[in-house]
């Protein structure tokens, strides 16, 4: 295309039902050329269904989805050569090497001069070029999957949960690859349930819960507009500090690690709480005050944690 449309993806009133289950419920959004767009939500929120409808794996129940200016339900044939997809739970041929796998996919796209070595370098698999797929660790397999998604020099890349199931180090290595893509200005549509991933990589984040998009914007905007407080974290104690904070009129909660988390409006409040605890003769091992992140935005909007999934949610993804 000589002139690229500003919006590569336009989703309008998209709905997908699986029998009685409403997986995606009337969602609309757009993705700009060159941005990294993240669909953030817990398992079962409808992320994969949404991305698989956009990248032509599934068909919608109703609504209109256009990708690169084409209707996804009508022009799969024209769309497929221009996009790259890393499906959820990606896998490849067990006994085919990294290089052979990339050559194979390049041939499927009928590309004679794909820079296979360049791709291998891009995803840091140079040492594993002649390794069979099944001998690669999960992180390396995902990185190969990303390289495969790039063999046809796609205009849009879809990455469906690229780091799910990876250990923190492998996840970080995948992020490095994705940051490289972002730097090159590739349009990326990403789904994830890792808040850090969305915060680190995305220009725009759409938070999805129970098939609905409940908030959308840059990570900064989302935090700014949705939460206007600081989060004070105190280490777990025998219950005294918790009581003191509660009696002061705040609403402390225990988090996953059984630390005490308190939302405070102003820095003055932090001072007050610390003084009260000190006056009660209780000493603190540590403390942490910070601006909230997307996790808190999600918590505020849905009343549920990203990791645990929304109460009563779930469904096919």
């Amino acid at each position, binding site marked *: 295309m000589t002139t690229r449309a500003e919006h590569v993806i336009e989703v309008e009133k998209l709905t997908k039902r699986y029998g009685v289950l409403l997986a995606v419920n009337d969602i609309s959004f757009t993705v700009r050329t060159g941005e990294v767009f993240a669909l953030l939500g817990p398992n079962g929120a409808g992320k994969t269904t949404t991305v698989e409808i956009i990248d032509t*794996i599934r068909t919608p129940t109703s609504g209109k989805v256009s990708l690169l200016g084409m209707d996804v339900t009508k022009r799969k044939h024209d769309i*497929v050569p221009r996009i790259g997809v890393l499906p959820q739970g990606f896998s490849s041929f067990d006994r*085919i090497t990294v290089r052979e796998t990339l050559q194979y996919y390049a041939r499927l796209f009928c590309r004679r001069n794909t820079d296979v070595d360049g791709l291998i370098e891009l995803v840091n698999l140079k040492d594993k070029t002649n390794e069979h797929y099944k001998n690669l660790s999960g992180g390396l397999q995902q990185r190969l999957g990303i390289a495969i998604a790039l063999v046809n020099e796609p205009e849009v890349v879809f990455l469906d949960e690229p780091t799910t199931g990876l250990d923190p180090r492998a996840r970080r290595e995948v992020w490095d690859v994705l940051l490289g893509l972002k730097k090159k200005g590739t349009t990326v549509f990403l789904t994830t349930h890792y808040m850090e991933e969305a915060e680190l990589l995305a220009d725009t984040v759409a938070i999805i819960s129970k098939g609905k998009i409940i908030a959308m914007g840059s990570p900064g905007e989302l935090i700014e507009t949705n939460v206007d407080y600081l989060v004070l974290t105190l280490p777990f104690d025998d219950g005294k500090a918790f009581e003191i904070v509660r009696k002061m009129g705040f609403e402390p909660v225990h988090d996953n690690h059984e630390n005490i988390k308190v939302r405070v409006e102003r820095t003055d409040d932090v001072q007050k709480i610390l003084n009260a605890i000190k006056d009660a003769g209780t000493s603190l091992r540590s403390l942490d005050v910070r601006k909230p992140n997307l996790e808190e935005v999600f918590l505020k909007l849905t009343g549920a944690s990203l990791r645990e999934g929304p109460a009563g949610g779930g469904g096919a993804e």
Partner: protein
Amino acid sequence: MNPRVVGANLVVSIKSFYREKTAMFFTMAFPIILILVFGTIFMDKENVSLRLPVQDLDRTDSSAQLVEALELNGKFQITGVEPGIDATQYAKKYKRNLVLIIPKGYERYLMQRMRGNDLDASVTITYIYDPSSTSVATKMEILNSVFAGINQKMSGKPPFIRSAEKSILTKKYRFIEFFIPGIIAMAVMTASLFGTVNLNTELRQKGVIRKLSTTPITRTDWILANILYQFILAVISTAAMLLVSYAVFHVSLQINAWLPVFIVLDVFAFVGIGMILTRFVREAQSAAAAANAIMFPMMFLSGSFFPIEMMPGFLQTLARILPLYYVNEGLRASMVFVDNMAALRNSAIIGVFAAVVFILGIFATKWEEAK
């Protein structure tokens, strides 16, 4: 259809096959081992050397001549049993199903008869035998006919009824020659059916098919690549089986244009069945079980290992509805009996079957995961 895409899939399939040693074994080595094992078992039976222990109590020139006459018949491998040994005990101890006893006085009675001293003189040759043994009847029949011949000769008159043998076959064929076309048909069936079922269910379960559905490869390219791949495997394994058969058993089989025709039809028929199966049985393991359920009756009932005429009537009727039966019959018609009409008839039947299941298979194969 895109030849480059088909070619790329073919390369991946062949490389995967070559690198997966168990698949290699079951496709290539297993049929060859079957041929070697069964060929060896039945080769012994053809060059029959039936064991025959003989206890010669007479120990004279005449009794030795009798033993020699039995040996010259060519069917027996004769071993002597010492006169002092109890023949029944001997048979039990050495698990012999028949011991022949030439009585003492054999030569004396023979001389009396020959010289005309006593025209009623006769001897009794005793068979100590195990009636529960299957091959003992054959042995006794052969012995009886040898003795009948001797008796006839001694009467001094030419026999009244003579027999002449004329085979309905252009040439006599051995069991191994009957066996090999059956093993070829079976090996191609197994490889095509399992190859298709494994390829489709495994790749679908692993999510490879989902990834492929986001590339320009079409269902036609995919099916075509699989068919070609199965055909290449079938050609290689057939060539290997024939090579072993010629080298080891010196078979005499007709290799003509019918062979590739039946292999192609065999591949199409069972790839088609495989595609239909994978449509309805989605889990890789249960699909393999379903493939086995189709394959085993086919293997044993359609005459791969033995002629269906050996089975009871209702099983013979059943055999005639199994597609592999027609591949077996067709291959045998062309390779053993050199009967072009029969080959044509069988190829027409399996051809129609292959076309139907293959077309159904194409419709049954789905790219998108309809959930």
